[in-house]
C-alpha cells in the first residue's frame, strides 16, 4: 500500500517535472513555439474560470451564466492599473483619463488581486439581489447582469475610466508562460482546498438537496453568497490574466459567447470535476486550433473535398460538443477526479483482459 503511495508521489512529481520541462523547452524558442505557448497560456487562464464556474455550478448547484461580466471587471481593473503611465495619454485619446486614476499605477499581481476583489464585491451586491432565484431563472438573471456590466463598461458615461468603446491597449503582456501557469495553479489549488473543506461539503449539500441542507443547519443564503463571491473573485482574477494575455481588451471580448465557451469547457470536462475542467479547458482551446484545417480547402489528389471551407471548423466544433452533451452527458470525467488509481485500474483491467484472451487463445 505504501509502495503504491510512493509510486503515486513519484509519478505526480515526474508528470509535473515533465510539464515544467516542456514549458521550459518551449520557452527556449518562443517564436517557434509561440502558438503552442499561447494555447497553453489561454488554457491555463480558462482553466481558472472553468474551475470557478464548476465550483458554483457543479459543486454548489447554482447555474450562473455571469462569467463574462466578472471577467470583464477583472480585466478592466488590471488594464486600468497596469498600463504604463506614459502610454495613457495616447490610449485615452478621445476623452482623456480621470485625473485620479491617471496617476495610479501598479505591477500586475496586486492589480490582478484588486481586479478579483472588484469582481467579488460586485458579485456580493448582485448575489444579494438574485441568489434567491431558482435554477434557470438564476441563469438568465446572471446572464443579464453580465450584459449590464458590459454595457456600463462600454457606455460613454464611463469614457474617462474604462475608455468606453475604444478599449484599452498596451497592457503589459506576460514575459513568460510561467507567470500565468503558476498563478492559475495557485488559484486552482486554493479552490480545490475550499471544495475539500467543511465549506465545500456544505456547498455540495446545497447542490444535493436545499431543504435537507437547511435542516442540517446550513444557512442557504450565506453559503450560496459565499460560493458566488469566491467563484466571482477567481473569475475576476482570470479576467485580469486574460488582460495580461491579450495586451488589449475591449468590451466586445466579454460577450455572452465567452461565458458559453467556459460553460462548454465545464460540461465537456464534467460538472463536478476539477480535473475535468482543467482537461476541458485545454481540449477546447487546443481543439479549436487543431480543427483549423477544416477551414482550409482540402485536396485528395486533385479532388477537392467538399464542405472544407471557412467556418466549417466551428460547425464541426459545435457538432462535437452536441455529441458530448447528448451521448456522453457526464463529460470526460463525470464528477470524478483524476487519480493515479484510475490509471492503474485502467491498465490492470486491460492486462486481465489480455490474460483472459490469451488463455482463450491457448486452445488452438
Amino acid at each position, binding site marked *: 500500500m505504501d509502495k503504491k503511495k510512493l509510486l503515486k508521489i513519484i509519478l505526480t512529481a515526474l508528470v509535473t517535472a515533465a510539464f515544467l520541462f516542456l514549458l521550459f523547452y518551449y520557452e527556449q524558442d518562443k517564436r517557434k513555439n509561440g502558438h503552442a505557448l499561447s494555447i497553453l497560456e489561454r488554457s491555463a487562464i480558462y482553466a481558472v474560470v472553468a474551475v470557478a464556474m464548476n465550483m458554483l*455550478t457543479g459543486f454548489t448547484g447554482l*447555474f450562473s451564466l455571469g462569467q463574462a461580466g466578472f471577467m470583464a471587471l477583472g480585466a478592466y481593473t488590471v488594464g486600468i492599473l497596469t498600463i504604463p503611465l506614459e502610454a495613457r495619454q495616447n490610449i485615452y485619446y478621445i476623452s482623456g483619463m480621470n485625473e485620479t486614476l491617471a496617476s495610479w499605477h501598479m505591477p500586475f499581481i496586486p492589480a490582478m488581486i484588486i481586479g478579483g476583489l472588484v469582481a467579488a464585491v460586485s458579485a456580493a451586491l448582485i448575489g444579494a*439581489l*438574485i441568489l*434567491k*432565484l431558482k*435554477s*434557470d*431563472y438564476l*441563469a*438568465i*438573471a446572471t*446572464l*443579464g*447582469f453580465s*450584459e*449590464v456590466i458590459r*454595457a*456600463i463598461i*462600454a*457606455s*460613454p*458615461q464611463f469614457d474617462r475610466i474604462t475608455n468606453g468603446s475604444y478599449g484599452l491597449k498596451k497592457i503589459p503582456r506576460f514575459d513568460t508562460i510561467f507567470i500565468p501557469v503558476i498563478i492559475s495553479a495557485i488559484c486552482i489549488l486554493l479552490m480545490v482546498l475550499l471544495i475539500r473543506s467543511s465549506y465545500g461539503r456544505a456547498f455540495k449539500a446545497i447542490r444535493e438537496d436545499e*431543504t435537507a441542507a437547511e435542516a442540517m443547519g446550513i444557512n442557504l443564503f450565506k453559503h450560496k453568497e459565499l460560493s458566488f463571491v469566491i467563484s466571482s473573485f477567481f473569475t475576476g482574477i482570470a479576467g485580469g490574466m486574460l488582460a495580461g494575455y491579450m495586451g488589449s481588451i475591449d468590451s466586445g471580448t466579454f460577450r*455572452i459567447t465567452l461565458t*458559453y465557451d467556459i*460553460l*462548454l469547457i465545464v*460540461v465537456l470536462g464534467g*460538472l463536478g470535476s476539477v480535473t475535468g475542467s482543467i482537461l476541458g479547458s485545454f481540449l477546447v482551446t487546443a481543439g479549436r486550433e487543431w480543427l483549423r484545417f477544416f477551414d482550409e480547402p482540402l485536396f485528395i489528389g486533385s479532388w477537392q473535398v467538399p464542405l472544407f*471551407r*471557412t*467556418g*466549417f471548423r*466551428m*460547425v464541426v*466544433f*459545435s*457538432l462535437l*460538443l*452536441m455529441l458530448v*452533451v*447528448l451521448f456522453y*452527458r457526464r463529460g470526460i470525467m463525470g464528477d470524478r477526479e483524476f487519480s493515479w488509481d484510475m490509471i492503474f485500474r485502467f491498465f490492470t483491467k486491460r492486462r486481465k483482459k489480455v490474460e483472459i484472451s490469451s488463455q482463450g487463445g491457448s486452445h488452438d
Partner: protein
Amino acid sequence: MSLVTILQHTLTGVSLGGAYALIAIGYTMVYGILRLINFAHGELFMMAGYFMIFAMASFPWYLSVPIVIIGTIVLGVVIEELAYKPLRSAPRTSIMISAIGVSYLLQNLATYLFTALPRGYPELPYLKKVFQIGDLSSSLVTFLTPVITIVLVFLLMQMINQTKIGMAIRAVAKDFETSQLMGIQINNVIIFTFVIGSFLAAIGSILYFTDRMSVNPFSGSLPGLKCFVAAVLGGIGSIPGAMVGGFILGVGETFMVALGFSTFSDAFTFLLLVAMLLFKPTGLFGEKIAEKV
C-alpha cells in the same frame, strides 16, 4: 418630446412588442411543459429568416410563406427530437446545456452556409407600403404586427381552451408525471407544442424581418433572450402573459432608447426581469406553484 414623436415611438414600441410576443409564446409554451429555456428558439427565428430569403428567390410570396412556416416547424421539431428528447430523464441542467449547444450550432451553421454578411430580406407586396398619417410615418407591417399578434394569440387561446389537444397541453403543463399516468401521449403533446412555437416563430420572423429588412447569423440571439424575459414578465406558461410581456418590453425598450439611455436598454430588460422575479416570481399572469417538502 413632442406628441408626434411620442406617438411615433409608441407605434415603434408596440410593433416591436408584437414581434417579441409571438416569439415569447414559443418560449412560454415550451417552458410550461418541459421546464426548459429553449435557448435555440431565437436561432430558429433567425433560420426562419433565411428560409424566407431562399424561398422568395424561387417562389412567389404566397407559396414562400407556407414553405417558410413548414420549414421552421420541421426544424423546430427536429431540434426537439434530436437534442431534447434523448435527455428527457436527464437533469435539467443537461437539457439547458443542450439547448445552448443547439443555439451555438445553428449560429455556426448559418455563418458557414450563408456567411456572416447580412442578407437582405425580401419584400412582401403591400407590407412595406409606407403610410403617412400627419407627421407619423410608418410602413404597413408596423401597423399590422400588433394586430396579427393579437389575432393569433386569440386563436391560440381558443385552441388551448376548447380542443382536446389544448386540454392535453394544459394538463401536461400542470403535472407532467400525472398526465403521463393518465394516458396522455406526452411526446405528441411536446411535439405539438414545438409545432405551435415554431409556427409562431415563423410568423414572428416574417413580421420582424420585413420590418427590419436584413438577416445575419446573430440576429436571433438577442431578441431570443429578450423574448424569454417577456415570457417571464407575463408569467411563464401563460400565453396572454407572454403577449403582454412582449408589448411591455417592446414599448419600454423603445422609450429607453428614445430617452437617450440606449446604453442601458438591455440593462433595463434584465433589471425588469430581476425585479419581476423578486417581487412577483409568478409573473403578471402566472399561477403559483406550491413546493412540497
